[in-house]
């Protein structure tokens, strides 16, 4: 079984993000970039499925600038077999990414596509669902467990009320939640092996996809600073404030 894993290059989660002075976006100059943490979980899940003998090949795919090769190389060091970069310098919307991924899915015909549930830069939480709609495959989003049985996959989803398990026919789309697994570290032998693994670069036009966006970012602002907390003298005072001021209990 072939698994396609999507990975995104984002600002590292430890970086304090700054908004550009002209409010046109986030300042990316000299900022450390990494693989989106949810995508790391997606790669890890694919690698575990391969280790169990369920998957035979893992293809990592990313859409982004040339520098996104770094994140693909990391995916290869974590256990992916080969990588595809759809190279684009544009700021693409979730729909454009989903269309490009659909084109890669058509080309590669994977049985399972695993994506992070969202990227930590824009937090859209859309690409997996859009890809499912475009490809017509079943979707198991916010996965905390993935079990492949024959030509079906059982996905346990994290939902507001608890957990829900859906049974999907393969091929299917899965998006990962935080508790699905704990990603491994890239070991030095695997980092060295990753150098020799193949990486293909494609352009959106080669895939026949138009990435013209219907969305325009008007303004980006930093959230308002949190106001200082207060110290209360007793539990009674705390309960009183929660009840009468905050009105949360």
């Amino acid at each position: 079984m072939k698994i396609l894993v999507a990975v995104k290059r984002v600002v590292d989660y430890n970086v304090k993000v700054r908004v550009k002075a002209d409010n046109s976006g986030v300042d990316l100059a000299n900022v450390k970039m990494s693989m989106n943490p949810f995508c790391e979980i997606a790669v890890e899940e694919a690698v575990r499925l391969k280790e169990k003998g369920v998957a035979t090949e893992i293809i990592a795919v990313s859409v982004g600038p040339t520098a996104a090769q770094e994140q693909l190389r990391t995916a290869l060091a974590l256990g992916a077999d080969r990588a595809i970069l759809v190279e684009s310098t544009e700021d693409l919307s979730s729909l454009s990414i989903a269309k490009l991924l659909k084109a890669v899915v058509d080309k590669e015909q994977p049985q399972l596509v695993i994506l992070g549930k969202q990227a930590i830069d824009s937090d859209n939480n859309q690409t997996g669902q859009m890809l499912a709609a475009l490809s017509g495959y079943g979707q198991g989003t916010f996965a905390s467990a993935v079990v492949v049985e024959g030509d079906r996959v059982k996905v346990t989803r994290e939902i507001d009320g608890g957990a829900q398990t859906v049974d999907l026919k393969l091929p299917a789309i899965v998006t990962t939640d935080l508790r699905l697994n704990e990603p491994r570290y890239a070991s030095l032998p695997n980092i060295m092996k990753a150098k020799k693994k193949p990486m293909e670069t494609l352009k959106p036009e080669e895939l026949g996809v138009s990435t013209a966006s219907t969305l325009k970012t008007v303004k980006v602002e930093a959230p308002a600073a949190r106001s200082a907390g207060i110290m209360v003298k007793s539990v009674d005072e705390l309960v009183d404030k929660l009840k009468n001021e905050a009105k949360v209990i």
Partner: protein
Amino acid sequence: MDFKLTEEQQMLQETAERLVRDAYTFTKREHASKSEAGFSTEFWKQLGELGLTAIPFPEELGGFGGSGIENMLIMQELGKGICLEPFMESVILAGGLITQLGSEAQKEELLAGIASGELQAAVALDELHSHYDLSHVTTTATQQGSDWVLNGRKGVVIGGHTAGKILVSARNAGDTCDQQGISLFIVDPNSAGVTRRTYATVDGRKGCELFLDNAKGELLGTAGGAYDAISYQAGRAIAALCAEAVGAMRVLCDITLDYLKTRKQFGVVIGKFQVLQHRMVDMVSALERATSMAILAACLADDEDSAERSAKLSAAKFMVNRAARYVAEESIQLHGGIAMTWEYSGAHYAKRLVMISHQLGDDDHHLEAYAAQLSA
């Protein structure tokens, strides 16, 4: 000059960074420091499993042929977590000495273990009155038939209390401070005639005094000709310490800045006071100067031995020592009393930085060494 890391170096740095960040919380470090080993054996195992302990060794010896840059990347991350494990002592110093001096059989026997982390080695060079002078060796080595017998005392052997093998410098010829006549021996610390007195060092690590009373040692390299190798490998270890100090300084600067932005006095955060802003800027300036010197040291650590290499390594250690102590002391001043408490991580960073500024030569020692090279 292009300082950009290769993709492999970036991934290596990310692996080390993530590992330290996940596995080395302040609480876990405290726990490891108080354990019998004085460091986390679990973390040491992880370093081995991920191949990080194999980095500097040649590929034909089971390593990855890493250079001073790879060592720098790992040491910086270990410095950020003020990790207690004797990585420099075992992998860089002991591993380097065995690679340079060892016979094929000795390399085969020991390096695979060090590279996998299964063997932790230590190096005993200092003596009671040596004061950073690597040629000041009073421990004696006498040949008895095919055996070498060692007598003397070695001090502050970091990691020596848990080491599987200890490399000991001893004199088989010449006077106390002669460079000729110094040999290096592999000592099994559990063999007859070897006694260790373990103690904690001020930075939360553990080391030992090593007493040798007719102890047997296996010669590493040629008899009486080990000084050049010891001096060369100490240079590689100095570069590693510089990198570790930079990692620790960076974190200490960050937490000091956070404190200035949080702590309120006279109704405003203390970072609003210009005099404190100036002091914070001076700390970061010192850090940046030290970073440049640590990169220089890493770039020439594995170069061929030369007077120029030694001079530049002394210059680097001098600058880093000064910066380390400056950042440590200023951090304490800017924090006030809290920076002296056991419960605050900043205190432990400061102590480690002070310790690094004395390991393998303090600033006076390296300033003198640098001046001597200039006038030579």
